[in-house]
Structure formats: structure tokens, C-alpha cells
């Protein structure tokens, strides 16, 4: 992108003499300070991505010793027309929309309830934040254990209510639902936290004015609370959508894509193509397409953010 705008580091530049602060000095300082970080990013992100871009036009495979052969856009055509990929796209979409929607509704609801409490707020928020800070690996393992069909605590509780045990992770629609439930458990606090930040920032005089006007509670919510919190909430939603889109670890631990391929998200499918099928070229094209989607989403995220900051 804009990485070309930074000239190479001139690390040996002596600091300007005391009292003499020219713009040139500032410039050199800025370059010296920024270059190491940008170089690290170039080396670890941009260079690998360019390599992937190159590989995406070849039939390269890690396991074969043959040199890569140029195949043009064939990999991209394969990916975009593959019915497997279409199915994974639908799965990912169902997962992203389902999880983010559920988290937003729950998170905002909880934040609203907490914001009306006068006592216990600190304790409540701290407790709610526990799931969010845990590693997806740990969370996946927790729930895999609890969802176990034979000795899992979830089925055990259902049993004591007189209900039949459910195969949470090994039946078709259940597995995807379980995935959404687990993700919601982990990330509802995130939405809650941001919604709460928005709710507590609503200036009190607005509510005071509304109560003088004897406005109904719904009116206050609809015309004061919600419009003021929405921009912040939107940022949280965009952030979560990007994270959910690139989700990998939870699927890997919880269902491993199964049963069949019903919980294979795009991220998981890329992994299978690359590391189990060894079609490095195809996987690279796949990856580049995913990166494009992420870039578009990140653009939106940044746009909402800039809008919020300008207010």
C-alpha cells in the first residue's frame, strides 16, 4: 500500500544541535522511529503476502520437488467456481451472521441492564469479562468437554430435566449451532463492554430534559440512548464480524470441521487445502481472496471509526 512513502532509514543521523529544530531534523527522526516497525511488518506480512500472490498463479505444491509452473488465473477460476467453496462460504456466512447477531443483541441487552444498576457494576463487568480474555483453545476445550454426548454436563443437566441427550458436536445442524453458542459465550462480553462504554457516555442532561417532558421510557431509549450508542456498537459489530470471518482455532478444537464438512469455515477449508491437500498454489489463491474480503471489511471498520472520531 503506502509502504513506499517511507525512505530508507538513516539511523546514523546525528540529533540536531540543541535549540536548532529544523523540519529536516524532525523528518529524519520520524523516519528513524517508524522504519523499524514498518520493516518488521514488510518482512512478516507484506513479503509473505506477495509470495502468496505469486504462488497463487502457479501449480506449486510443498510436497513435490518440481519447480512451480505458471498457470495464470486457473487457481482463481477453480476457487470461485468450486461448489465446495460455495458451501463453505454459506457456512461461514451463517456462522458470522448468527454469532455476531446473537452477541450484539445479548451484549447490548446486558449492558443496558448493567447501566441501570447503581451497585455492583464493577464486580459484574469484571466477572463478565472472564470468557473474553481466555484463549480460544482453552474455550474450545472447555466446551468440548461440556458438550460431550455421554458424560458432558450439558446433557447431564438436560437429563435431570427429563430431556433426551443431544449429540451437540456430531449432528448436522447442532454442530454449527454449538459453534455459534460457544463463540457467543466468549464474545458477548466484548459487545457488552463497548455498549456499556457508550451507554455511560450518554450525557445526563438529555435524560433530564426528557423526564421534564415526561417522555416515555421507550421514547428515551429510541431517541436518546440508541442513537448515541449505535455508532460505537457498529464498530464493535464490524470488529467482531472480521474476527468471526477469520476464525480458525475454535473450529479446529471443537468440531474439526465435522460432522462431514458441515462446520468447515473458509479459514478451516484453506487450512485443509494447504496443509492436508498440499495444493499450495490453490490455497494461496484462496487465501488472497480471503485477504481481499478482510481488507474491504477493515475499510468499513476504519470508516465508521473516523466518523465516530470526527463527532
Amino acid at each position, binding site marked *: 500500500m503506502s509502504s513506499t512513502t517511507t525512505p530508507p532509514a538513516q539511523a546514523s543521523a546525528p540529533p540536531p544541535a540543541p535549540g536548532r529544530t529544523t523540519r529536516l*531534523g524532525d523528518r529524519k527522526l520520524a523516519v528513524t522511529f517508524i522504519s523499524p516497525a514498518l520493516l518488521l511488518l514488510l518482512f512478516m506480512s507484506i513479503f509473505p503476502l506477495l509470495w502468496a500472490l505469486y504462488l497463487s498463479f502457479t501449480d506449486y505444491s510443498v510436497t513435490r520437488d518440481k519447480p512451480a509452473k505458471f498457470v495464470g488465473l486457473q487457481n482463481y477460476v477453480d476457487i470461485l467456481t468450486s461448489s465446495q467453496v460455495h458451501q463453505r462460504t454459506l457456512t461461514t456466512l451463517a456462522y458470522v451472521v448468527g454469532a455476531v447477531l446473537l452477541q450484539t443483541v445479548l451484549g447490548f441487552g446486558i449492558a443496558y441492564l448493567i447501566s441501570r444498576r447503581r451497585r455492583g457494576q464493577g464486580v459484574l*463487568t469484571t466477572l463478565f469479562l472472564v470468557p473474553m*480474555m481466555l484463549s480460544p483453545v482453552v474455550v474450545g476445550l472447555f466446551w468440548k468437554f461440556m458438550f460431550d454426548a455421554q458424560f458432558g454436563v450439558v446433557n447431564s443437566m438436560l437429563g435431570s430435566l427429563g430431556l433426551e441427550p443431544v449429540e451437540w458436536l456430531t449432528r448436522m445442524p447442532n454442530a454449527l449451532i454449538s459453534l455459534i453458542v460457544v463463540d457467543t459465550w466468549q464474545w458477548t462480553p466484548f459487545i457488552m463492554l*463497548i455498549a456499556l462504554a457508550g451507554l455511560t457516555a450518554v450525557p445526563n442532561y438529555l435524560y433530564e430534559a426528557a423526564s421534564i417532558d415526561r417522555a416515555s421510557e421507550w421514547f428515551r431509549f429510541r431517541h436518546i440512548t440508541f442513537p448515541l450508542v449505535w455508532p460505537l456498537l457498529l464498530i464493535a459489530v464490524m470488529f467482531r464480524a472480521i474476527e468471526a470471518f477469520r476464525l480458525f482455532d475454535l473450529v479446529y478444537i471443537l468440531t474439526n470441521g465435522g460432522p462431514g464438512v458441515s462446520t468447515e469455515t473458509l479459514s478451516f477449508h484453506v487450512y485443509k487445502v494447504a496443509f492436508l491437500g498440499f495444493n499450495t498454489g490453490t490455497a494461496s489463491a484462496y487465501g488472497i481472496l*480471503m485477504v481481499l474480503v478482510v481488507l474491504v471489511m477493515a475499510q468499513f471498520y*476504519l470508516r465508521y471509526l473516523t466518523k465516530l472520531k470526527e463527532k
Partner: protein
Amino acid sequence: MTISSDRLVKAGAVTDTVADNPLPRRRRRGRGRNIVEVTLLTVVAAAMLFPVLWILETSIKENRDVYAVPAKFFDFKVTFAHYKDVFFASDGGASDVSRSFLNSILVAGGSTVLATLFGVPAAWAYSRFPLRAKKDQLFFILSTRFMPPVVIVIPVFLMYRELGLINTHIGLILVYAAFNVSFTIWMMKGFVDEVPAEYEEAAMLDGYTRLQAFRRFTLPLLVPGIAATAVFALIFSWNEFVFAIFLTTSQDVRTAPPAIAGLIGGTTVDWGLVAACAVVFAIPVLVFAFLVRKHLVAGVTLGAVRR
């Protein structure tokens, strides 16, 4: 937390003046509603915490009770055998998992130091100086953080194979440092923006160079922000799984997340041990998260949202 509590009390008071209306019917409805709300919150809190409590409980149960059907909630014998297994192998030496914890400390610590050393000066420069295409540069930095790890890991894997960095601590440290440096720049830029540039300008009028002004006057004010940012970077590296599992294969280098995930690979799973590992692994994260709870909103949105 991030909430200014006095403001909330006021907000509550306002709500109350509405509820304390002379109309008795309305007051009763307000109280009933209060009960409903508290009940709802309690239910949600219980649902949120139950899995955590359940794992804690599983980690101190004997194997017999772990697999009991129906599940035993209270009447089980307490044992700390699983915690002993986390750290010690059956022959008395250090277990594989305990070694992976050491690797995790090394990798998370190393990448955090690197990201902080590179990120903080960059954040300061982005905050203070007019630069060409600054917005584009910052977007580029942000977008590297959002890349799907599974996609990045394919070329990184090939690159590391050429450079001999597969199965090395330094390889993992570099990947995490790159992810964390973008976070550090975004997060720290917010903190630097809050320190008035006038401080440095005043110092420069007194004869300090720009660099000295930064070191003497701005940097000390940034220390709390740097600490919070570093803690978030630490948590990210500590929790990371995807790069760890694809870029390392040997027990000597492997960090804790893949090592713990590896425990469920076999035909029989010792869930008591898994639970104990998960608890030991999660405790430092929770302690650190508690320390930076004031900055959580900023931290989880890459410093984008701060209140």
C-alpha cells in the same frame, strides 16, 4: 472499569425521580421491574461463569467423578493430582506441558519486548509529525493485524523453511512481534495523542532537542500506557494458537496452546488433566487482564475506541 461511577449514580437518580412518581401504581411497577432485571442479570452471570466454575471443579475431581453420569456438582472428593501431573511427568521429571509453559513465557515475553521497542517510537512519530499518506500508512498497519492467520501462515511457513526458522523460538517471536507491533502503534498513538505536543515544544525552546524532549518529558507520561499496551500484547502472544501449531512441531519449542490442545489427540482423553492445564494456563491471563481492566475497551479495539 471504564465507567465513571458517579455519572451512573446520577443517571440512576434520574431514573428514580421518574419512578418515584406520586402515582403508586407506577412505583409498584418500577419495583417489580427492578426484581426482573436483577433476576435476569443473575441468570446471565451464572450462565457466563458456569463453564469456568465447571472446569475449576473438574480439575480437582478424581477421574472416577469426572466421568460420572449424572454429573456430580458437589459430592466429590477433592484431589490435586491433576495439578501435579501438569508440572511433573510420571517419572518425576518435568512434564511436556510444563516445558511448553516455559516456551510460552519466552515467546510471549520476547515478542512483547520487540513489539514495544519498535511500536512505541513509531506511535510517537505518527502522532507528532505530519507525514506523507499518514492515513494510508495507518490503515496498512491496521490491516496487517486483521489478516487471517491461516492465510499468512502458508507463505510464512515456506519462508521459514528456506530460512531455517521452523521450530525455533525466534521464528514465533518474529511473527507475534509483527502482529503486536501493529496493535502497539494503534494503541500507543491514542496515548501519545493525549499528551499535549506543547510540552515538547516548550522543552525545545529551553534548548532540548526533539529527541531529548521526547525522552525527558513525554516518555515518562507514557509509561502507564506502555505498560497496558504491553500487557495486551503479552496476552495475545500467550493465547495464540494458529501460528504456533503450524510453525512448530517439536516438544522443545512448542508453546502451551498447541501442547494443551495435543492432550485431546489420543483415543482416551484425561479431562481432569486437560482442565488443570487450562486453569494453570488461564490464571496469568486473568490476572493481567484484571490489571489492565481500565484500558480493556481501548485494548480490544486496537486502541480505536477509548473512553
